[in-house]
């Protein structure tokens, strides 16, 4: 009896969340809280109640995130230090970007974004090498590259945020306001979601698939930068000057990122299912089992659907404030609805009809094309109220 009691007590203690935290976790919490406190003491007078609330919740959120997903700590610190470096090197204005060594080659937003682009593309290639050559080492390198690319992307956005204020106080705004900026956001969010799954499922085999989408986004980004000078920071048109933008756009891109992952997991599913059918024993079998892929696909779509729902509703609330109606059947809105209905149908088929396997994988891939049209095609082919980046 006693031994059972002790064992029980031991188990209960083992599992306790607070006891499970290491010293380093507490160091992390201290650093973040100090940073938040510093920002608060310095800038509280400039902030309204909402902004104070957001600052404090961001600090708490970051602590929690770092506790749940330890790699976020390194990422956050690296992003913080590099962004501070970038911001501090701007002394005489934007032209410093051409003269200062660090800005020019590392941390001006343009350079950071170029690093991000290069690293994502290299990571994609390395993931392929690791997948085809069954090399664990290459896989580790690829992960490291993806982490670095994500770091540089975030640094690029942070520094760009600052740069916009250097152009003019009335020009400054969060960098989620045009197609160039949201493509960066998309790459980063997709990469982070992927890295989360990579750790969760302990497999790097999916990297080559998911990073392919990111590389495509990067290719578009580069074309857009060089061909259309899209990297210039533009002031916000009146309709975009709204708090809603800051939450509507990121929520949307969590959705898009998750849908992209679902489609690439679907592709992996089809590849593996094909290999199994042919009784091949090629590299396709190093992919996670079909069951896991199917589950992962469902989870991604569920995540995407939840955030896309949130984003669409935020968009509707914003529209109510900016255009005088929460729903105007504007092409962008309408396509968001189509994307949403499509995934709602997917979820119902899976859940209530028990559909699994190849048709669902194929549907997830088609879903990405529908999403892509909502994201890009609408801007290219249809005219409407969304003033967001024309091609």
């Amino acid at each position, binding site marked *: *009896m006693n*031994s*059972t009691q*002790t*064992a*029980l007590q031991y*188990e*209960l203690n083992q*599992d306790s969340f607070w006891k499970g935290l290491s010293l380093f976790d507490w160091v992390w919490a201290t650093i973040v809280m100090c940073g938040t406190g510093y920002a608060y003491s310095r800038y509280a007078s400039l902030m309204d109640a909402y902004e104070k609330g957001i600052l404090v919740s961001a600090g708490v959120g970051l602590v929690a995130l770092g506790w749940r997903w330890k790699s976020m700590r390194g990422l956050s610190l690296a992003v913080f230090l590099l962004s501070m470096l970038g911001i501090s090197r701007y002394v005489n204005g934007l032209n410093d970007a051409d003269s200062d060594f660090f800005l020019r080659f590392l941390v001006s937003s343009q350079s950071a974004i170029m690093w991000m682009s290069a690293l994502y593309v290299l990571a994609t290639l390395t993931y392929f090498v690791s997948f085809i050559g069954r090399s664990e080492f290459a896989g580790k390198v690829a992960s490291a590259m993806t982490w670095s690319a994500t770091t540089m992307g975030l640094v690029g956005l942070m520094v760009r945020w600052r740069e916009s204020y250097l152009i*003019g106080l*009335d*020009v400054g705004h969060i960098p989620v306001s045009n197609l160039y900026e949201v493509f960066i956001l998309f790459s980063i969010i997709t990469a982070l979601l992927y890295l989360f799954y990579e750790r969760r499922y302990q497999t790097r085999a999916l990297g080559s698939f998911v990073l392919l989408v990111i590389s495509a986004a990067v290719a578009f980004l580069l074309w857009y930068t060089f061909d259309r000078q899209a990297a*210039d920071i*533009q*002031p916000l*048109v*009146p*309709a975009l*000057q*709204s708090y809603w933008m800051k939450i509507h756009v990121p929520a949307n891109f969590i959705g898009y990122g998750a849908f992209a992952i679902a489609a690439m997991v679907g592709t992996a599913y089809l590849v593996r299912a094909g290999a199994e059918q042919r009784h091949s024993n090629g590299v396709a079998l190093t992919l996670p089992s079909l*069951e*896991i892929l199917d*589950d992962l696909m469902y989870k991604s779509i*569920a*995540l995407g*659907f*939840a955030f896309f*729902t*949130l984003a669409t*509703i935020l968009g*509707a*609330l914003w529209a*109510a*404030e*900016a*255009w*005088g*109606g*929460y*729903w105007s*059947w504007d*092409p962008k809105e*309408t*396509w968001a*609805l*189509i994307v949403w*209905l*499509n995934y*709602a*149908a997917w979820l*119902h*088929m899976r*859940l*209530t*009809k028990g559909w699994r396997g190849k048709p669902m994988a194929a549907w997830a891939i088609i879903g990405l094309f529908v999403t892509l049209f909502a994201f890009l095609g*609408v801007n290219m082919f*249809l*005219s409407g109220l969304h003033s967001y980046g024309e091609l």
Partner: protein
Amino acid sequence: MNNHPTTQALFTPPRKSALLLKFLGSMNLAITLLVALSIAAIIGTVLQQNQPYTDYVIKFGPFWFEIFQQLGLYDVYSSGWFLFILFFLVVSTSTCIYRNAPNMLREMREYRQNITLQTIENYSNSYSWQLNHSADEVLHVVKKLFPHHGYSARQKEGNGYTLVSGMRGAGSRLGYVLTHLAIVLICIGGLIDGNAILKAREMLGQIAPETRNLPANEVPAISHLGVNNMSFRGSVSIPEGSQSDVLFINYKDGYLVQELPFSVEVKDFRIEHYNSGQPKSFESDLVIHDERLEKPLVQTIAVNHPLIYDGYSIYQASFSDGGSELELLAWPLLGKSSKAKKIDTKVGADLQMTLFDQSWILETSNFRLFNINPSEDPDKKFKNVGPSMQFKMRNKTGEAKEFLNYMVPVERDGAYFYLSGVRSSPAEEFRYLYVPVDDAGGINRFMSFLHALNDDALLRQIAAKQNFTGSALPSKDSAQFNKAMVRLAGVFVKNGISGVTEQVEKNVPLEKREEVTKLYIRVLQQILGAVYVDVLSKEGVDVSLGVDEEKAAFFDSASAAIGALSRYGSPVYFQLASFKHHQASGLQIAKAPGKNLVYPGCAMLILGVFLMFYAPQQRLWAWLQPTDDGVKFVLAGHAIRNNMDFSTEYQQIREQFERILTS
């Protein structure tokens, strides 16, 4: 009496109402509706909605125009069939809730304490121990570990056994109800705020859209909507200093007039710009006059900052000209008098005038203070090219050309020009006439040049002075040649270069055409040049040493512009001399009571979706049955969703029990 099983009952067909319910609540119907809705939405985005009907006629031709109109494709989202799909979705989802919700809500609270040993042993997540502990000891562990993992637990003493039922994530069932109820609320709210009600009233013959362009107070009553109209969204353009108590709602190929219980005055409208020239804000100072108010309500609105008053939301939607006063100089383009005439007009006004014995109407449609255009300068993306006016010149047959004239000269390749765009229909792009600016920064030299070319006597005089060295013509022919030269200049001024080549094509045999054309052009250039020099010297410019590069460039541009005049389409050139700017603020005013359903629906939807995905319902059972030498302990788990995750978690919990109980 009747409690013996009736096998027959199993075979009696279900009642009709049950069948109907089954059909309405079926997943197949739901998916079909979702897909149908998507397709309809795609049609609505591919075909631009609510354009003027004439545009559609041009695009599709009369036959397809008619068919598409019958199908309601020009306003898909308020067409009968679209509303029908939405209505069905509401019915289907409601039925679905009606059929499922009671079960789900029950299940939320149910711990499934009546489950049998056999059932839980058959679950894939099930494990059985034979332990020599006492039942109480194991029960104690179960009652500690279940809550520890987040399962709330209920205990039941059965016949020779104890069952602990644990449950977690009951929220997902609630999530289902919330999500689907939200869909119903949002659709109903949307239907209230959409124009389904207007459609119904139109079908009942209570209202009809007005298609003529009338002032609001002349629009017949059948196109008026009273203040009791529950929901609408319309717009009105109010000039600064004026007020309005009506709105206009675009409806089909016309509009309806919505009356307001108050009137809105626009005191002032402002646009602010960034340094780069792009617009930074649009603002209107509004005053609401309402007899229910003690004193008028004063408020400034801007994009993203509407005014909510009495259930009406007033938005800054657009802006336009509010009747700016313009002073124009009308330069004749025909005849030889080069005197400009001063004309006063106003944006929105039609001005009758007689020009060269013909009657014309000048319809001034717009004035813009700023024209922000893309800039070639790499440091600046935009540049402001200054004010412009837009107008139509309508001749006595009713045909009109539309013009867009800029007030200040615009630079092109180092030289400055007055720009005047012209087009024959709104569907076309403007084609521009580039009138070169003279040294004094004016248009006078160009006009003098043009009128000199219109002056036959002067031309003859100048032609006579030319000596055609190298042309080896006998002197008898040279008189004729001079005449030809004057005629050529006339043809050029009237019909441009194409007039000259036409002349050649008419009179000269094919094999000699090229040669003759070349000659004509050389001669033409000579006479134009001579006239130009004459104009310059009359201006007092010293031309004894020829003309400088700038004046030569002016000559080229002026000749090109004159050559293009034949296609210009107005007998005068209007130069915008001065203006008094009046703006109008475009307001959108909406009343949307449906949002009282839609917004709570949205909140429910978000909550519901997250609950459904992230609080999946999971159950654990611990079955304890004392045996001779201890206890039989069965631990089973079941989840309806996320089975893989749940299996992993079940394994961990099972291993934990294993460690504790077998230590």
